[in-house]
């Protein structure tokens, strides 16, 4: 099942075409939400004894929690009548269809799997998304600020650079007003408010929202929604790896400490170490 853009992305139904010239009706037509399949938040990951990587066999996999928050926000925007379509996309193997189906069950309209068996670096992911953006023309790309596996925190920023569009990272509040968005960002110094012109890339922080729970009927309904599979090679992007991981090791362990009986003893041990 190959997805061809000529039949989808370039010819819009008349209804959409009319919308294009009446931007006051909805702020945005399409929101693209990349979802990464990652080891579940609650799994305690361990390094393989031979140092060749982390042990991932049989562990529970989920949508990257930050991406889930981004999807929730996209759905809320659509439910407020400020967007028309929410498209989820994942770049990975067949197994990533599970996360896309979860995204559809949450309420996304359709899904795209860009299929590859290679683990891609953030730049390669950003280039792939850039190619998809070219085909889909979304006004917003909304994704997590980082994936909880490699903790890179790069892809959204890179996509925005390649697209030559604004980025708002670490977003905890988002308001759309025609072709302008106002976003609150969680930065080290507090909360920063910035204003951007659409289209743009938004990356979500933890407190943007609390994603909904999916109910069984939605899961059943999601099975009927469109999930297109697009081989990565068809996008013709350079996904060459630039970095070489030569070793994986467990972190240095802190020696186990001691329990003190009371505050008096605590004060004693701290003053012995000249800490107070």
């Amino acid at each position: 099942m190959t997805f061809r853009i000529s039949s989808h992305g370039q010819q819009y139904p008349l209804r959409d075409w009319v919308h294009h010239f009446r931007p006051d009706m909805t702020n945005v037509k399409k929101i693209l939400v990349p979802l990464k399949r990652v080891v579940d938040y609650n799994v305690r990951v361990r390094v393989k004894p031979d140092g060749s990587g982390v042990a991932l066999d049989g562990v529970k996999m989920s949508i990257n929690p930050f991406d889930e928050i981004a999807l929730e926000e996209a759905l809320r925007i659509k439910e407020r009548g400020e967007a028309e379509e929410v498209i989820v996309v994942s770049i990975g193997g067949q197994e990533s269809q599970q996360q896309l189906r979860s995204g559809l069950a949450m309420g996304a309209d359709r899904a795209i799997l860009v299929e590859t068996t290679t683990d891609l670096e953030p730049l390669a992911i950003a280039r792939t998304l850039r190619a998809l953006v070219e085909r889909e023309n979304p006004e917003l790309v909304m994704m997590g600020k980082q994936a909880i596996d490699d903790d890179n925190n790069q892809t959204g920023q890179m996509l925005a650079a390649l697209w030559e569009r604004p980025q708002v990272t670490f977003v905890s509040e988002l308001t759309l007003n025609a072709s302008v968005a106002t976003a609150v960002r969680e930065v080290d110094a507090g909360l920063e408010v910035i204003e951007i012109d659409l289209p743009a890339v938004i990356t979500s922080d933890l407190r943007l929202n609390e994603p909904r729970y999916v109910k069984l009927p939605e899961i059943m309904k999601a099975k009927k929604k469109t999930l297109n599979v697009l081989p990565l090679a068809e996008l013709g992007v350079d996904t060459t790896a630039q970095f070489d991981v030569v070793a994986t090791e467990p972190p240095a362990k802190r020696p186990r400490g001691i329990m003190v009986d009371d505050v008096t003893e605590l004060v004693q041990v701290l003053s012995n170490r000249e800490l107070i």
Partner: protein
Amino acid sequence: MTRVLIVAEHNGVSMNPSTAKCVTCARSFNAEAVDIVVLADDGEQVANEAAKLAGVTTVIRLNHAANNSALAAVLAPQVAQLAADYTHIFGPSTTFGKDLMPRVAALLGVGQLSDVMEAENAFRFKRPIYAGNAIITVQTPENRILVATVRTASYTAAEPTGSAEIESRSVTADIPKHTRFVELRGDTGGARPDLQTATRVVSGGRAVGSKENFELIYELADTIGAGVGASRAAVDSGYVGNDLQVGQTGKIIAPELYIAVGISGAIQHLTGIKDAGTIVAINKDEEAPIFEIADFGLAADLFTAVPELVAALKN
């Protein structure tokens, strides 16, 4: 010949200490040149401060009216404009650097390395993944510029004992107008030491129970001149602002003394404090994971233990 360019983090008036930590990282692999670029509307004061850092070769000033707030879309093309003279471009792994450096890398068509915690040499680095549950060693290509962020908790700040040249250059890059700064809603820390650089930090968790009860944490912190932090749960519950969050997605800190009060110790929190000198945990639940990494644990009700501790310390 390794030449490192460091992008200074500052607030227009003074430099963030994260910049001096990037200098230490660059010096750790004996870079031949370590330059700092100050992007500001008038970077004189910041540039003077940067020039004092030991081991810095040249400070480059890029003044532009658009640089009065640190917007990645505005700054990235200006940093990229300087790239040709360097083998490495570093920024701190703070919200400033995390926002900016990937954009710089993508403009240059190269990957970016996040959270460098150790340099084996100029092209081989260690960094944490999975919230610090694994450390990978990454070999980077020698024939391409390396863009990276530096995990500030892994390095001490370079001393202010140098005297580098300061050089003003003009901005030639196109500055986009699609991104506009509106306002910064400030710091809840008040006059207390900054969380990221404080030598002592007292943090509160969910068990503190309310915004009002957080006064206990402030009182303990003020008694020992500490900065204040919080777990994600405490921030989510609205006890304190997001700028106090410590952990995988908040701040990664390395104080000499860290006192965790009413924090159970989720792995995401622990990753933010692993580099602390001494960790003290006060928690009612003896089984709390925080006790696994604490140097000193006290299983007690925080509402009795903390006032007792404050009283004992005041004596």
